[in-house]
């Protein structure tokens, strides 16, 4: 690994100022599970590392009076995965966090890092998008809120201003009869990366047999984490049955824009979007029915 400068500011404004000042030369260090590996294995040069470890504002998980949930960007994979607040609020955020690397990696890797790394194959970010979460950004010019779905602009690319940081994510309370599911396809059972990931959130009518609203967000099959909008359209107002799910699966496959790479061909990925959309929706509906 090459030499680098290191700063671990205790104030958010300090961190933002450093990042704004050094521009492309500086990189944010959250858990380091991507950055450090890239610096070691791929010889990536980073003149300045700005660690976020001492920023209290970026930590913790809490529920607000309005029912929304706030997760600090520095919450680790294991904190998010095991949080009862997260599990009760939007179970699939816990499910996605559980898939970050190994147990050891989840002790370091953070939710903010998973979003901030902006990998199309991220597991923890798509549930945030599907749950209509917003990211609270803080920078030298102040704070602003951006939907997580609008944050990623392409592989490794975020719509952040120079000097801007992700402070936290806010997940609105879901309506009654809502169930969620994040599921991914990987060739082996652990320590893998999504070939296809599906985050699904379904809200049922009071009859528990009709889909009131549905959100389907795709991972690893597009440059970002897009909603499968045609699939969502195909679900709204429909009765819960195999045909509805099959139509949604097909629509999501058509919505996806996968590439072929060493992990899978685009064709196979599309087939898996179909399969896993159906499976994710089936579980989300089951959970919606079980929910209060």
């Amino acid at each position, binding site marked *: *690994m*090459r*030499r680098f400068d290191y700063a671990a500011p205790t104030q958010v404004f300090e961190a933002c100022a450093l990042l704004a000042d050094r521009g492309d030369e500086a990189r944010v260090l959250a858990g380091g599970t991507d950055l450090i590996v890239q610096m070691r*294995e791929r*010889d990536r040069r980073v003149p300045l590392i700005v660690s976020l470890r001492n920023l209290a504002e970026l930590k913790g998980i809490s529920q607000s009076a309005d029912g929304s949930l706030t997760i600090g960007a520095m919450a680790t994979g294991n904190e998010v995965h095991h949080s009862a607040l997260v599990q009760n609020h939007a179970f699939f955020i816990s499910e996605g966090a559980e898939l970050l690397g190994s147990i050891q990696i989840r002790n370091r890797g953070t939710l903010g890092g998973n979003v901030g790394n902006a990998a199309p194959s991220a597991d923890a970010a798509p549930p945030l998008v599907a749950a209509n979460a917003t990211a609270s950004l803080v920078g030298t010019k102040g704070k602003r809120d951006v939907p997580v779905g609008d944050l990623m602009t392409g592989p490794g690319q975020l719509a952040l201003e120079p000097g801007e940081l992700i402070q936290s994510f806010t997940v609105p309370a879901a309506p009654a009869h809502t169930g969620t599911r994040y599921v991914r*396809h990987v*060739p*082996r*059972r*652990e*320590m*893998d*990366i999504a070939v296809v990931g599906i985050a699904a959130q379904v809200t049922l009518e009071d009859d528990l047999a009709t889909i009131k609203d549905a959100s389907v967000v795709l991972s690893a099959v597009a440059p970002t984490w897009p909603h499968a909008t045609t699939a969502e359209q195909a679900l709204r107002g429909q009765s819960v049955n195999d045909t509805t799910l099959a139509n949604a699966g097909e629509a999501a496959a058509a919505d996806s824009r996968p590439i072929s*790479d*060493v*992990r*899978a*061909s685009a064709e*196979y990925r599309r*087939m*898996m979007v179909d*399969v*896993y959309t159906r499976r994710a929706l089936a579980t989300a509906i089951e959970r919606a029915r079980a929910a209060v």
Partner: protein
Amino acid sequence: MAKVVERPQEKTALRVANKPVSRIDGIENVTGAAKFGADFSLPGMLWGAILRSPHAHARIRSIDYSKALEAHGVVTVATAADFDDDVVEPTSRPHNVFAGETALYLGEAVAAVAAVTMEDAEAALELIEVDYEPLPHVLDPLRAMEPDSPVIRHGDGGEIDRTEMSFHSSVASSAEDLEESGNVSSQVQFGRGDVEEGFAEADVIKEGRFTAAMVHQTYLEPHAALAHFTPAGDMRMWVTSQGQFYVRDTVARLLKLPAHKVIVQGTAIGGGFGGKMTLLAPIPAILSKKARKPVKVVWSRSEELVAANPAPGSVIDVKIGAKRDGTITALQGRVVMDTGAYPGSPMSTATMLLGSCYVFPNMELEGFEVLTNKVSVGAYRAPGAPNSAHAIENVMNWVAHEIGMDPIDFRLKNAIGEGDRWPNGQPLPNVGAVEVLEAMKDHPVWGTPLAQGSNGNPRGRGAAIGCWSGGAGGSAATIKLEADGSFSVLVGTINLTGNTTSIAQVAAEELRVPLEYVSVHQGDTNEAPFGPVAGGSQVTYTMSLSAAAAAQDVLRQMKSVAAQRLGADPDDIEFDEGKMWAQSDPDRYVTYRRISDEAVGSANGPIIGTGHGKPARGNPGFAGTIADVEVDTETGLVTILNLVGVQDAGFAINPLSVKGQIQGGTIQGVGYALLEEIVYDEDGRVQNAGLLDYRLPTAADVPDVDAVIVEKHNPYGWKGTRIVGEPSIVPPGAAITSAISDALGIPLHNMPLTPERIVMALRDAKANGRSNGNPAG
């Protein structure tokens, strides 16, 4: 426990041998106290880094490293020019340290830098100016065999270096080196009877073309070596390698040093599986010789996956004919093995092994080793055998299915045995093929019908066997009687698999002392007697003989001292539990401690025993696998429900260690079957040079492997010992792929069967109307 099928009566009961014993070095390994290759450092040490070719095939017009030499911290740079022409062998990877006139694969070493820090060394690589002239390249072995393919080597002469392959197999290879045939670097043929007649007699004929991917041995510890060329002119080295004497000889030759001036200490080793011989060691050696300082080089995992020596991919055609009663009438086979940029693959072994488990009255086998612009291949645990077993054993199951015979019964009817001949004409000693098959048949998994799968997913079962000839090298050991009556054993072999524990068991058994009275030390190449490479499953096979002989030599000397003290005839001396006495007067005894004292002060001097061993011949080891699987037909994901590994160990010196070997080999077979594959893009660049995308099975991907030891006495081994390390990796790939084929009811031809390959095969079968529930197609 082990299933003893054949063992001669012992005169005395066994005390230490044949008992499960935890590895003596286990605590050190699991607490991190053991020092592996990269753990060694010296004061003033430099770090080495390697510049690699960015082209799959390119002429090197010039190398200018003057700027690198001026860079911060850099002490020296080495290239091919640092080795004399008369030691370089362009066709031998260990003797062609850096690309000379031509780089033959992307990632081939072109130069190396030694600098004060790793960072300085890596930064300096970018300052080396290499003028490459890219040449056309070829990556697919079948394409490389076509007449209009780019040619990789133009008669660069030199003999094919089969040294590393010979470590693994004591069986003579009859492969011919071909000079004027494009990219086919060697070719082999085996024949018997008349295959046309054989197929004419057959009621059922099944055939298929099978592909197996290039896979990496993926030892836990990457290559690492530290070299120190001392002011006295000694080349001292600490190397993680399976063969310290092989490293010594290679470095001595390349640097033109006498063997005794190259002193190699093999370190604790984090796995090798045949892939860790002498690839890296010459680089720190030449850098240290130039810099006159210690130099350490440690490979990254990506260097491992791009530029080590993985196991070869292959394309194998197999055709088998049989009568309705299960009698095999003919075998035809053709192996095309991708050897990468250097010849020396296990092609001829793989070809021969097609005909090595069963009696084939008529056979015609041919094999081709083909050069491509990929990294050169090396040995990987039973080199080439998993590829062969994958092809032959799947077709065996298709034939059994077609004639409606139990696949194990079909194998038993045709299994090879003592006196039968391998394709090379060699008659076999008492191999355990039948006993392994019978143990498989007796296993509860085989006797229990498959249950229904979950969510309607199909389940399938596959059985396969395989064999490996193994090495039978010469070895030596010395044993010292220490002052307190305990013993220390000195060996020159590497403790790759816990074999020092087995050697200690052998010595303790022969010396009739508890295991705690014996320690085994692995000395460096000057201290220790010669020991063969820890490969070819041979270390315990041969070292047990030399350790036993050294113990007998020690006992002979001890008896002489005891006889003097007791006033008895040495031939009358009996011994046990640290005491010797005359059988004529069993009440008076002398302790081992007293014998040691006496010897030091006597004309005899301190007692040191020497033993030499070499098994009279190899005796192939047979292994079998039963696999039960469930397949998610929508996603192609395979769940292995049951995995049984059966192996004939002859006499298991340490059954715990043997079971570990069976489990390890079987799990590596899971990688072959389902996950592992080095993938190249069209430019010849490895696409998955990391352990995320080069997928090994994790603990979550494999069930508990039920390891069953069969013991059929081998007349050439200590107390009947056979080779153990390699055979267990041979059949699991075949058994698992066959089980998937059984589950889906379609023939499958590739390893690994990734989820995508399975889904696409199912889709194609549906499209072709072949989804008829017949795995034999």
